[in-house]
C-alpha cells in the first residue's frame, strides 16, 4: 500500500498491474469497444452476403461461423464487458467508495478476457473453422457434429464465465461493504441497484453455462451421453440447461441498461426519477421471473401442453414490471424541463425502441403464435431491438454522459447528435424490415433466401452499413474529445445531474473518496 497516494505508474505496467478501478474500468470499456467493432465486422459480412439473393461472398459454413461469432462476441465480448467497465468506473464513485472491494481480483477478471477472445477469434483460422452452431450452440450440432474448434470454444466459455463471476463477486462485495456512511440501500443510485441485482444473476447462472459446456466437453471427449439419445441422453436437455442460463443472461444484459437510463433521463428532465422504489422492486421481480421462463425459447420442441401454458403465463407476467419501468421513465419526463443533449437523445431512443422490442417480446410469449414466429427473422428483429437499441444505445448514452467526467473534456455535441440520428435511422432501417420478412416466413440463420424477401433484406443491409459507419463517427468523437476536447473543470458537468460522482473534481482524480463523503440524511436517493 506504499504507493497508495501516488498517481498512476508510467507506461505499460500501469495497465498490466493496475488495481485502480478507474484504470480497469477504462480498459474494460476500450476492450469492449474493440469487440463491438469486431462483432460489428462479422455483422457487416453477414449483411453483405444477405444484400441480394444467391451466394456472392462467402460459403455457407463461413456464414454460419459469422452468425455464431457475431452473437458470442457481441454478447460476451462487447455488451457484458462494457457494462462491467461502467460498473468499475461508476459504482465506487456513486456510493462514495475509494475503490472496488477486491482490486487485485478486479485486475485478473479483466486481463483474462483479451487472450480468451484472441483464442476464440483464432478458431476462424483452424482446420474446420470456428464454431458454427449458432451462439446458442444446440447439441448435437455443437457436439457430435462439431469441428475440432469446439474444445477451444468450451475453454473460452469457461474463462469468460470465470471472469464474469469474479467481476460480479467484486461488485456485490463493493456494494454491500463499501458504501459511504449514510448511503443506505434505498439511497443508492438506480444504476448501482440494477448492477447489484445483475451481479447476483451472474453469480447464479454463469456456473450453469459452465455446467452446460462441461457436459458438452464430456460428451465430445469422455464418452458420456448427456445430450446424445444413443447413450440414454437427450439433446433437448441441452436446450433446457442453456436457456436456464440464457434467459437470465438476457436480463443481465438489459438491467444495467435500465440503470443507466434511470440516471440520465432525470438529469436532462431536471426532475427526480419517478417511482424510485417501484423501479427497484420491478428490477428485482424481473430478475426473479427470469428464472422461471426459460422454456419460452423452446416452445416448438414438443413440451407437454401443461409446460407450454406455465411458461407462457410466466413470460407474459414479465410485461408487468417492464411496463412499470417504461411508465416511470415517461412520468419522469412529464412536466420536467427537458433538454436534448446526446445522452438524452440516446436514452429516448432507448425508451422508444426498447418498448417496441418489449411489445414484440410479449407477442413472442404467446405460445400458439410463437409457433409461427419461432426461429424466424421476427425473433432476430425482436432481440436486436432489445439488445442493440436496449443495451448498446444505453451504453452509448452512458459514454456521452460520463465521458466529460472521465477525461475532463467535453465531446463535440453536434457530432454526438449526428451520431445519434444516423444510428437511429440506420438501426431502424436494419431491423424494422426484419419483422416483416420474419412474419412472411423467412427463417433465421440462412445464408440465402427466397426472392420475395429480397427488397427488405436489401434495406436491412443498407441500414446495417449506415449503422456500422455511424460507430466510426462515435469512435472519432471519443478520441477527439480525449485528445483535444474543450476543457471542462466544474464538478457538475450537467446542470440537472445528481449523485456523488458529480461532487468530485472534473476530470475525476486517480483516487477519489479516500475519506468517505458525507451523505445528507435528508437528501433522497439520487
Amino acid at each position: 500500500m506504499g504507493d497508495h497516494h501516488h498517481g498512476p505508474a508510467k507506461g505499460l505496467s500501469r495497465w498490466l498491474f493496475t488495481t485502480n478501478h478507474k484504470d480497469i474500468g477504462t480498459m474494460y470499456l476500450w476492450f469492449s469497444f474493440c469487440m463491438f467493432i469486431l462483432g460489428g465486422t462479422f455483422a457487416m459480412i453477414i449483411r453483405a452476403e444477405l444484400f441480394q439473393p444467391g451466394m456472392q461472398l462467402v460459403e455457407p459454413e463461413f456464414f454460419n461461423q459469422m452468425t455464431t461469432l457475431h452473437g458470442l462476441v457481441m454478447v460476451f465480448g462487447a455488451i457484458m464487458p462494457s457494462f462491467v467497465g461502467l460498473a468499475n468506473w461508476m459504482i465506487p464513485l456513486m456510493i462514495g467508495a475509494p475503490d472496488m472491494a477486491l482490486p487485485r481480483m478486479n485486475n485478473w477478471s479483466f486481463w483474462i478476457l483479451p487472450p480468451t477472445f484472441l483464442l476464440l477469434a483464432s478458431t476462424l483460422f483452424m482446420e474446420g473453422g470456428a464454431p458454427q452452431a449458432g451462439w446458442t450452440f444446440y447439441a448435437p450440432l455443437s457436439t457430435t457434429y462439431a469441428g475440432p474448434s469446439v474444445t477451444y470454444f468450451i475453454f473460452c466459455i469457461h474463462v469468460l464465465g470465470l471472469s464474469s463471476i469474479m467481476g460480479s463477486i467484486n461488485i456485490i462485495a463493493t456494494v454491500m461493504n463499501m458504501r459511504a456512511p449514510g448511503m443506505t440501500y434505498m439511497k443508492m443510485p438506480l444504476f448501482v441497484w440494477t448492477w447489484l441485482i445483475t451481479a447476483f444473476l451472474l453469480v447464479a447462472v454463469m456456473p450453469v453455462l459452465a455446467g452446460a459446456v462441461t457436459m458438452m466437453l464430456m460428451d465430445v471427449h469422455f464418452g458420456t451421453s448427456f445430450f446424445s439419445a444413443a447413450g440414454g441422453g437427450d439433446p433437448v436437455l441441452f436446450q433446457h440447461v442453456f436457456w436456464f442460463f440464457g434467459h437470465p443472461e438476457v436480463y443481465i444484459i438489459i438491467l444495467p441498461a435500465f440503470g443507466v437510463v434511470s440516471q440520465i433521463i432525470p438529469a436532462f428532465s431536471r426532475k427526480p426519477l419517478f417511482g424510485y422504489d417501484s423501479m427497484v422492486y420491478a428490477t428485482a421481480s424481473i430478475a426473479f421471473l427470469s428464472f422461471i421462463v426459460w422454456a419460452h425459447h423452446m416452445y416448438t420442441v414438443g413440451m407437454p401442453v401443461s409446460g407450454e401454458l406455465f411458461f407462457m403465463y410466466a413470460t407474459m407476467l414479465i410485461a408487468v414490471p417492464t411496463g412499470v419501468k417504461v411508465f416511470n421513465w415517461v412520468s419522469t419526463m412529464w412536466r420536467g424541463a427537458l433538454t436534448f443533449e446526446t445522452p438524452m437523445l440516446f436514452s429516448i431512443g432507448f425508451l422508444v425502441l426498447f418498448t417496441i422490442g418489449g411489445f414484440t417480446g410479449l407477442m413472442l410469449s404467446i405460445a400458439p403464435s410463437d409457433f409461427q414466429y419461432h426461429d424466424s427473422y421476427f425473433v432476430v428483429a425482436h432481440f436486436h431491438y432489445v439488445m442493440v437499441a436496449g443495451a448498446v444505445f444505453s451504453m452509448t448514452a452512458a459514454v456521452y454522459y460520463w465521458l466529460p467526467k472521465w477525461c475532463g473534456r467535453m465531446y463535440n455535441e453536434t457530432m454526438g447528435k449526428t451520431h445519434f440520428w444516423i444510428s437511429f435511422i440506420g438501426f431502424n432501417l436494419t431491423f424494422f424490415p426484419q419483422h416483416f420478412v420474419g412474419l412472411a416466413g423467412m427463417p433465421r440463420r440462412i445464408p440465402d433466401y427466397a426472392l420475395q424477401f429480397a427488397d427488405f433484406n436489401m434495406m436491412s443491409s443498407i441500414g446495417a452499413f449506415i449503422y456500422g459507419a455511424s460507430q466510426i463517427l462515435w469512435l472519432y468523437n471519443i478520441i477527439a474529445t480525449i485528445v483535444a476536447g474543450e476543457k471542462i473543470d466544474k464538478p457538475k458537468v450537467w446542470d440537472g445531474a445528481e449523485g456523488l460522482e458529480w461532487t468530485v473534481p472534473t476530470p475525476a482524480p486517480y483516487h477519489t473518496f479516500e475519506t468517505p463523503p458525507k451523505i445528507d440524511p435528508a437528501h433522497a436517493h439520487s
Partner: protein
Amino acid sequence: MVFKAKRLSKLALGPVLLLMSVFAMAAGGEVSDINMSPGVTEVGHKIYDLHMWILGISTVIGLLVFGVMFYSIYYHRKSRGVTPATFHESTKVEIAWTVVPFLILLAMAVPATTTLLEIYDNDDAELDVVVTGYQWKWKYEYLSEDGENVSFFSNLRTPQAEIDNTEAKGEHYLLEVDEPLVLPVDTKVRFLVTANDVIHSWWVPQLAVKRDAIPGFINEVWTNATEEGVYRGQCAELCGRNHGFMPIVVNVVSKEEYAEWLAGKQQEAAEIKELMAQTFTLDQLMERGKAVYDVNCLACHGANGEGGVGLPIAGSPVATGDIGHHLDVGINGVPGTAMQAFGGQLNDVDMAAVITYQRNAFGNNMGDTIQPIDVYNHKKG
C-alpha cells in the same frame, strides 16, 4: 390535402402501417410480404387472429405511451421556459399501472390458451406421415396398415447455377423440391417428426405447423388444410452448412387426386422392384445417373465432379478404382466424414445408375457398369 395525407402516411408508425396493409390484404390464403399469413387451416386463422389481437393491443398501448412521451418532449422543453415539477411518486398511479396491464394480459391469455389446447389436440388423425429431417433434406413416409409404406426423400431442386448467380433465378428460388409432400384436402393429417442426425425444424407457415425434429425422438403435430394448393416452407432450426437449402413443399390436392397419387407411388415402388431384375445399357444408366447425381451428389462434389465440400470425383481413386469399393462407399458412406450412407436413401436402380455415371462421366471413362442386381447383392452381402 392529398399532399399532406401522403406525408402523414410516410410518418406513420410501422405497426400502424402493418395493420392497415393487412386489412388491405383481403384474400385469405394469400401469402403476405409483410405479415403473418392466416394460411389455409382453421388453426392458422386462429393463430393469425391471436397475432393481430396482441399486435393491436400493443400498438394502442404503444401509441398512448409514446403520445404522452412526445407531448412531454414538445411541451415540457426547457427552451420553452418551463420550471420542472418536483413530484416523484404516486402510489395510486403506480398501483393502477401495475393492475391494468395485468388485466390486459388476462385478455390475451384466454384466447392464447384455447388456441394452444386446440393445437395440442392430436387425436383422430386420418393420415399419419413420418417426417424425418436429414442433413439437408426431408424424408416423408406415409404409414399404412398393410405395411407397404410409401416413402421418399424430398431434395432442393433449385440448380446450383442459380445459387451461384450464373443463371437467372426461378420464381420459387430455394423453395422448390424434386418431390413434394402430397396431402389430401380437408383431412386431419398427423405428422410424426423426427431427425436422422441433428435437430431440424419442419415449418410450413401456411399450414401453421412448426415442430422440431429431434434425433432419437418423435414429436407430433397436425394440420388440416381446407384449400388445395402448393404451400412452401423451410427448415427453421440451424442444422449445419445447408440449413438454408432444405425447403419443404406441400401439395394439397383433392382426395381423389391424392388416392390416385398414392396408387401411382405404390405402383412406382412395384416398378422399381421390376426394374431391379432388368439389365440396363451404359447409356440408360448414364442418363438416369446424371439426374440422380445432380440432386444427391452435386452440392458437395460439384457439377463437373470437381469437388467442393466433398472430394473430387473426376479422376478420383474411388471412381476410377475397384468397382466394388466404389459401390460400397456409395451405399455405406465413409464414417467420420461428410460422405453419408446413401444405401437407405436411393433405391437400387438409382444407386446403380449414379455409380455408373460417376465412373464414366467427368473424363473418368471407366467403361464399366453396375446393375441394380449388383447393388441388391452388395446390400445383402
